[in-house]
């Protein structure tokens, strides 16, 4: 009690504490709040640069842009596609990451060295990962060479030219790059599980699997949830990889939501429409993070 009072007295300098966060506040305003207000404004007017008008002279458009976005099949499918891609790659990453973490939590030669190699992919720039997987999956690339070698000629696959295969190639790229993240998070969480309950369970004759199910998994669950949320939100932004590998093609069959917004907003200059679509996406992300952060907040000490 005394301790807390002392702290409250000593750390109550109003002028000083406001000064500390002032630069941060400025940045938040400059890049979050003001742009958001502009985006909201743009989404309710009708403005494209090719209209030749200034953006503040644009006519009011009501909810027309929102309506168009919601009814646009390309927006809908980009949204659904991104969600499916995120759910798929993140679950694969979770399963592989968990398996690797358990594997590396056992003893075998070269374990330490190997585990540091595993971190490699997630430190590479996304653009470079895109380039690597683009080159690997080229029609005359090494993957097809292996396929031909194993299954005979005429077995080469046009990876980036077929909708599902292209998505698969992109998904593989993302899994390759980010499974290490899941591995790393779960690995360190496993290391932090207190040994006592496990020892106790062992003396009681519990099997390895029971110990894992009943003690280890519950202990690392909060960490896994945070990792899933963060990875999910990051994966939802996917852009670089697709931009480099397929540009959203063939057709629009690998277009993610970010790529769709980029194309409508910046390639075709429909900035009002893109703003409305972006705000719809923002609302979705806010809802997901809000729901996702709820259990998380109890974990984070504030």
């Amino acid at each position, binding site marked *: 009690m005394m301790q807390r009072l002392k702290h409250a007295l000593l750390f109550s300098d109003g002028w000083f504490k406001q000064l500390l966060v002032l630069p941060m506040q400025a940045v938040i305003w400059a890049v979050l709040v003001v742009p958001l207000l502009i985006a909201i404004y743009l989404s309710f007017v009708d403005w494209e640069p090719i209209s030749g008008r200034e953006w503040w002279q644009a006519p009011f458009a009501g909810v027309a842009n929102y309506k168009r976005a919601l009814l646009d099949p390309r927006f809908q499918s980009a949204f659904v596609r991104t969600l499916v891609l995120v759910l798929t790659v993140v679950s694969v990453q979770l399963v592989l990451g968990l398996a690797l973490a358990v594997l590396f939590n056992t003893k075998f030669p070269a374990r330490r060295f190997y585990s540091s190699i595993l971190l*490699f992919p997630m430190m*590479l720039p996304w653009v470079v990962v895109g380039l690597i997987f683009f080159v690997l999956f080229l029609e005359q690339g090494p993957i097809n060479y292996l396929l031909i070698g194993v299954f005979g000629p005429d077995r080469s696959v046009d990876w980036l030219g077929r909708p599902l295969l292209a998505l698969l190639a992109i998904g593989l790229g993302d899994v390759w790059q980010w499974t290490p993240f899941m591995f790393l998070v779960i690995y360190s969480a496993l290391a932090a599980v207190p040994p006592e309950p496990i020892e106790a369970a062992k003396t009681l004759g519990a099997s390895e699997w029971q110990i894992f199910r009943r003690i280890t998994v519950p202990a690392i669950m909060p960490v896994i949830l945070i990792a899933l949320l963060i990875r999910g939100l990051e994966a939802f932004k996917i*852009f670089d990889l697709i931009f480099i590998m397929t540009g959203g093609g063939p057709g629009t069959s690998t277009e993610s939501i970010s790529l769709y917004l980029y194309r409508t907003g910046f390639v075709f200059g429909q900035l009002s429409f893109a703003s409305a679509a*972006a705000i719809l996406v923002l609302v979705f992300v806010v809802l997901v993070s809000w729901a996702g952060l709820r259990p998380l907040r109890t974990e984070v000490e504030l």
Partner: protein
Amino acid sequence: MSRGRYRTGRPWLRLLVATVVVLVVLGPVVWLASLSFKPPEEWLAGRPTIIPRDPTATNYLVLFAPGLPGGAIGEALRAAQPVNRALINSLLVAPISTLLSVAIGFLGAYGVSRFRVGGNFLPFSVLATRMFPPIAFAVPLLVYYRTLGLIDTRLGLILMYTASTLAFSLWLLKGFIDGVPRHIEEAALLDGASHWRVLFTITLPLVRGGLAATALFVFIMNWTEFLFALIFTSRTAVTVPVQLSQYVGTVGRFYGPQAALGMVASLPVLVAGYAIQRFLVRAFTFGLVK
């Protein structure tokens, strides 16, 4: 920390599985490295090899001094653009915005950790900047940056990167500062030291390691950023990732120089990443997981 809790299975079998995994992880990178040393005839050779049959450094040379090598390779590559400007831009933008982000984040983190300024709202609204898809902010920022004259300038990128990595700086440094026992600061304050003095002579030295780790991680983020750079630069402020994407689509496809540039672009972040290996979990999860 006790390792090796599960003892079923043979270690050599586990080693085998782990080796396969490591090969899958390394394979693609090795392929890129190998491609960067191959002459044009081998870029899409019928029989791909890991070791180039006729290794060459040309792909690296043409990046930084186009027109230098002669012969058929030179002819094919002469159309490629030198990356010197992109490299200089990246070397300026990434470190400067890292310094700014960490400095602002440090002050903010101290305020949030010790004074709880802004309650929960402030730190979480900073976190939100990182959760939202950046493309959603690109449209209004374009209009906004135009008014401020910041399009295609390094300053514009620096501000944007400072802002977009602030979430990492704040949350990571908050974690480190939370770990510094308060009684040391309290003792100094009771002795009559000013808040600024306490901040810079007591807290700062104690979180030195944390600052370095945060800075390296933020540097990785800034160095690899692509979307904003793609949209907001056109000529003067182009960065390395954008330059890399520009090699796609030129006549004949310059896979070799592209791979070489990929290697050059990866090197700094790999070094930075391994330097802070210990902190990576924290870093990638904003310090939410320690």
